[in-house]
């Protein structure tokens, strides 16, 4: 078992090293960093699916929420926006609070039959009240230097602070959705999470006052040095010379990636440590007992819904942290880049391939799948060019097929998922215990 783990991890390392020698170390570490982030996301999904059997189809939403948090924490505040719209925003927040208080109070005092209509009326009234203040506020904010800012900005804190906060924010969203959809049919959670993730993306795309929408927030402050500073500093140039680098700028790029790699690996290690501890604790054993035989566990007095909620929230938090890491690495938040196939379903392929329920498997799955996802493009190009070669370069069909080559990766991911589910449902690194009972319907 452990031999297998070592072997597979070793192979993955060899592949990345080969990329380093054959292509460049910059490329290798670029892939490595995203592999680590993917591994963190896969760990989060594995907590939900592997520990508890919960099908979260909203990974993208929680990741994006993490990215948004990174912006809101780390970008400098736009003082002008706050000064023109601060009052209105304060009034909006006040209206929001008032609405919530009114709803809670009304639900206590009105007779049960009237609860629903009264709640709806109050919510609608509150919605319009907030709109009265909020509409002008957003207009004002968005008209301030729209090309460069046009939003409120952030808190101006170091971006690393955003990572744990991103976890908290995503956990909060997960808690809300879990409260609603857990305890019902298993596929209801899937559908509800699908919904929440689309809405989170819509908010990030269209609320310009919040994060500039599709105009993107760029230039998020880095937790690591900038290349331009590095190539001008004495110590770095001597360091680069010491390692015999040809180009100082290449070396600077590599150095930055290395810094990120160290940060990311530290986060991965911390999360992994907690995840393994949790899995081996009585809590983890109970989670698996619930997963494998929910009815029996419920009969033994376990509060299944509560346990599920705990794991679900934890998993969402980890996805949120990964999202913040990703945005930090990119240095920008681009809402249009969030598509479910890439940010939700790809993570699922990672977890399934790695081995549901096994954290080491999830990390490995994250590495392999990200690597394949990146390499599928050149491969797809090569493949399409080869099979269309007989048609000649002028052929329209050939050109069309080569243009679509990038989408070979979808085919590849679908095939991997289906083949693993069919022929090796336990994945590359199977869970230590027997989960056969979890996979069959109890009737």
């Amino acid at each position: 078992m452990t031999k297998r783990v070592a072997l597979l991890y070793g192979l993955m390392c060899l592949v990345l090293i080969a990329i380093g020698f054959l292509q460049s170390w910059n490329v290798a570490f670029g892939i490595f960093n995203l592999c680590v982030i993917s591994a963190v996301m896969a760990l989060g999904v594995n907590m939900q699916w592997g520990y508890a059997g919960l099908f979260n189809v909203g990974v993208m939403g929680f990741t994006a929420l993490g990215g948004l948090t990174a912006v809101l924490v780390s970008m400098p505040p736009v003082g002008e926006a706050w000064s023109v719209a601060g009052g209105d925003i304060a009034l909006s927040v006040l209206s929001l609070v008032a609405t919530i208080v009114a709803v809670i109070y009304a639900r206590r005092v009105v007779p049960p039959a009237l609860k629903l209509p009264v709640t709806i009326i109050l919510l609608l009234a509150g919605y319009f009240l907030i709109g009265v203040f909020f509409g002008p506020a957003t207009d004002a904010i968005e008209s301030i230097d729209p090309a460069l800012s046009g939003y409120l900005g952030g808190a101006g804190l170091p971006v690393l602070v955003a990572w744990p906060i991103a976890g908290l924010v995503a956990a909060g969203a997960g808690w809300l959705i879990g409260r609603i959809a857990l305890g019902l049919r298993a596929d209801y959670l899937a559908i509800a999470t699908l919904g929440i993730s689309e809405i989170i993306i819509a908010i990030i795309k269209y609320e310009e006052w919040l994060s500039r929408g599709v105009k993107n927030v760029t230039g998020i402050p880095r937790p690591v040095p900038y290349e331009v500073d590095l190539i001008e500093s004495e110590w770095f140039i001597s360091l680069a010379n010491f390692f015999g680098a040809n180009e100082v700028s290449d070396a600077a790029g590599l150095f930055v990636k290395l810094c990120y790699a160290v940060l990311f690996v530290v986060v991965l290690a911390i999360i992994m440590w907690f995840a393994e501890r949790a899995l081996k604790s009585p809590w983890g054993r109970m989670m698996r007992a619930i997963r494998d035989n929910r009815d029996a566990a419920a009969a033994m007095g376990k509060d299944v819904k509560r346990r599920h909620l705990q794991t679900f929230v934890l998993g969402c938090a980890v996805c949120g942290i990964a999202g913040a890491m990703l945005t930090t690495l990119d240095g920008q938040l681009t809402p249009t880049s969030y598509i479910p196939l890439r940010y939700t379903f790809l993570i699922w392929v990672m977890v399934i391939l790695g081995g549901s329920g096994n954290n080491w498997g999830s990390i490995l799955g994250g590495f392999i799948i990200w690597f394949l996802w990146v390499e599928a493009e050149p491969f797809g190009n090569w493949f399409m060019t080869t099979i269309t070669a007989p048609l000649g370069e002028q052929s329209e069909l050939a050109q069309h097929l080569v243009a679509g080559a990038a989408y070979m990766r979808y085919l590849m991911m679908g095939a991997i998922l289906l083949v693993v589910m069919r022929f090796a449902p336990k994945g590359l690194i199977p869970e230590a215990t027997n989960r056969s009972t979890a996979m069959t319907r109890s009737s």
Partner: protein
Amino acid sequence: MEILNALALFANFVVVPATAYGAQLALGALGVTLIFGILRFANFAHGELMSFGTMITILVTWFLQNMGVSIAPFPTALLALPIGVLAAISMALVTDRMVFRFYRKQRSNPIVFAIVSVGVMFLIAGIIRIVIGPADQSFADGQRFIIGAFDSRRALGLDEGIAIKQSQLITVVVTAVVVAWLFWFLQKTRSGKAMRAYSDDEDLALLSGINPERVVMICWVIAAALAAIAGTLYGLDKTYKPFIFLQILLPIFAATILGGIGQPVGAILGAFIVAFSEVTVTYAFKKFLAYLGPTDWAPEGLVQLLSTDYKFAVSFIILVAVLLIRPTGIIRGKVI
């Protein structure tokens, strides 16, 4: 007069488009609810199945247009639709044979089915993007309007007209025919009753000598046919965008759950409720209220509850409300 104008405005911008949209959703939701009822899982590949059938219809439409074949004033796509339907059915049957049947034999957990349906979704999405590309495609031809805004204004003698696009009328007519046929099939035919029996209790269906593989096959055939029709009508009415078919799963699932899982009547009800809510909530009532209010008065702002960017939020809110208030749906469906 003013009231009539307001009503005409409302009909033009809410009732007509929502009816067409509701019909398209209904066809999708019927397929999802049948699969829920018979195969007992949430099929995440259903959107892509719609997309696939539509894509084949588009390719055949282009071919026909190139050949100079036309059934003007009707869109050529109607002529191509049967091929798209056949293609979607073939795709569904092939994926069932290659993927889902194995898990059925194993009696796998529904969630396992849902996950493998994600694999199928990836595959179909890949095929679609390689074949037709990720960009928008428009393939509607033929007459655009049955009743233009101008004509209807004159006919009604109002300031506001009720324009009806041909695609909207086709959508409603086709949906009505298909739904009528489906209910006749389910209620009156041997195979239809077998499907209902299987959906009710699969073990007892076995004891009656009903062949489950046959029921499953019929279920896929119907669901895929409805999917291809729904996607094509949606594409005729708006445009064909490959990426939309993952998002459209949300209103379709919302309609299915709202109606009650495995309940065809519920799926239709749910679809129209979702469609009308979505269109109403994202409609700007400014002009409507201006007609109703005193002369020369108009409300400030658009009086729009939710910007159209958030139309999917409507489905989500409906979904959440159903889960909170009545998880079994309007017509009590299968809830474990």
